[in-house]
């Protein structure tokens, strides 16, 4: 018989390992299924089809723009959110809820909300329309939809970094003559850079995969709003191989982005 002390320690660990294995399988097996079902022989031909390249180009372009937009808008929002710990309970919780909403809202609902706000008859859209600005069903609408769903990933990553950093070095910077803006640029931003990088990656990956809000708010016009996920979904209706090929591209880009990052830039990894 093995030593009983070893058993008591190993018993729970085995259960944990098994459950962790099931969880991992749930995450990885579907992706493996894509690889196993991929029409490898036809793949080169499928990937260079104009629609594929067009959708890929549009996805990368809009994903990059919305990530940049999330950085510009999201970092100050993260600063405010990190500072809100000293606020009264109600505004603090409202702010956090507002930032969290896109994470829990079905993207289709988000797209509908954007349409009701910015559509030609929307709350704001009617005024924009009056001065000749139309947003829905344009590439701009894709960017807005992606920014809407991806923003929380950036904000929470940066907020976590802000809370983890020793903010007192900002006082040191001020005593050395740095104005508040210089402190922000030369100290605060570099301190939270790992969080910003992690947030930007997650943001880009989320934007790249955006489907529901985009198709509701921006539609599916080839070359204008038909991003890779939409193209993949449409293809799955009549040409499964084409759909799998597009899905593979999304998978490869996402994995490449995540692997291309240093460990310490990933959320949950400190090193």
């Amino acid at each position: 018989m093995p030593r009983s002390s070893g058993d008591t320690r190993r018993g729970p660990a085995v259960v944990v390992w098994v459950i962790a294995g099931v969880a991992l399988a749930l995450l990885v097996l579907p992706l493996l299924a894509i690889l196993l079902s991929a029409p490898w022989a036809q793949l080169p031909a499928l990937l260079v089809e104009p629609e594929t390249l067009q959708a890929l180009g549009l996805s990368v372009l809009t994903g990059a723009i919305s990530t940049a937009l999330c950085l510009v808008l999201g970092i100050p929002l993260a600063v405010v959110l990190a500072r809100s710990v000293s606020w009264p309970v109600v505004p603090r919780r409202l702010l956090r809820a507002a930032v969290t909403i896109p994470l829990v809202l079905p993207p289709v609902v988000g797209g509908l909300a954007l349409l009701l706000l910015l559509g030609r008859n929307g709350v704001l859209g009617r005024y924009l329309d009056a001065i000749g600005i139309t947003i829905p069903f344009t590439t701009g609408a894709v960017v807005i939809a992606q920014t809407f769903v991806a923003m929380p990933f950036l904000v929470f990553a940066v907020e976590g970094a802000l809370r983890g950093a020793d903010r007192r070095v900002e006082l040191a910077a001020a005593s050395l003559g740095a104005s508040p803006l210089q402190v922000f640029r030369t100290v605060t931003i570099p301190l939270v850079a790992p969080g910003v990088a992690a947030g930007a990656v997650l943001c880009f990956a989320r934007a790249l995969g955006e489907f529901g809000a985009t198709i509701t708010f921006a539609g599916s016009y080839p070359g204008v709003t038909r991003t890779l996920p939409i193209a993949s979904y449409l293809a799955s209706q009549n040409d499964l191989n084409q759909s799998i090929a597009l899905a593979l591209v999304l998978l490869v880009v996402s994995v490449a982005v995540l692997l291309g990052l240093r460990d310490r830039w990933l959320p949950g990894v400190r090193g």
Partner: protein
Amino acid sequence: MAAGGARVSLVADIIVRRGSFEVAAALDVAGGRPLALVGPNGAGKTTVLNALAGHLPVECGSILLGESDITAARPEARRIGVVFQDFLLFPHLTVADNVAYGIRMRGSGRTAVRSAARAAALPWLERFDLAELAGRYPHELSGGQAQRVALARALAPEPEALLLDEPMASLDIEVRDEVRAELAVYLRDFTGPTVVVTHSAADVAALAADVVVLERGTVTQRGTWAQLQATPATPYVTRLVGRHEE
């Protein structure tokens, strides 16, 4: 700057409030005569220091640095160098860039450029025996080295006054005597008003010419170390002067 010409002094008579805790302190610090602000933990020493540096607002009273009233000035507008208790070096910058930071921020035109500020920081690195460490990051430094960087960083932009908050507290006990002796030498070279916050008798004896004792938010005694030793005014001061050998 403080070197040359008439020596400026730092004159403060202030009340600072932190929550329900109130600190009242009057200090008159002459250039070249470092003042030790001593007191037990929680006496309000660091609160006074933060008010002098501009990191805490003054409830009432005034702070004069030389001719100018800096009571309401923002920290970046006061020419006061600060060495913080755990040094607060910029973790993302090398030793050279830490020392150059103030030169770059205070600089105009050429020295506002990183490379020019680095060049201007070189003499300071040499003076504080940091030239060989110029490329290191703060986490690669010993406590004594980090203190030298903090001091060089505070002095490089040529402040008119210098504040040090418990400069020995985050050093290992074995190296304190050596580092304290070094610090005393560097402080002698600085001719502006200097305030050292400490609760250590050894720091007072080695670093300061004058002493102000702060207890529970009020000044209980002031004078030279010798005067404090001769006539300690409170039980705390009696204990303080009695354990000089710490």
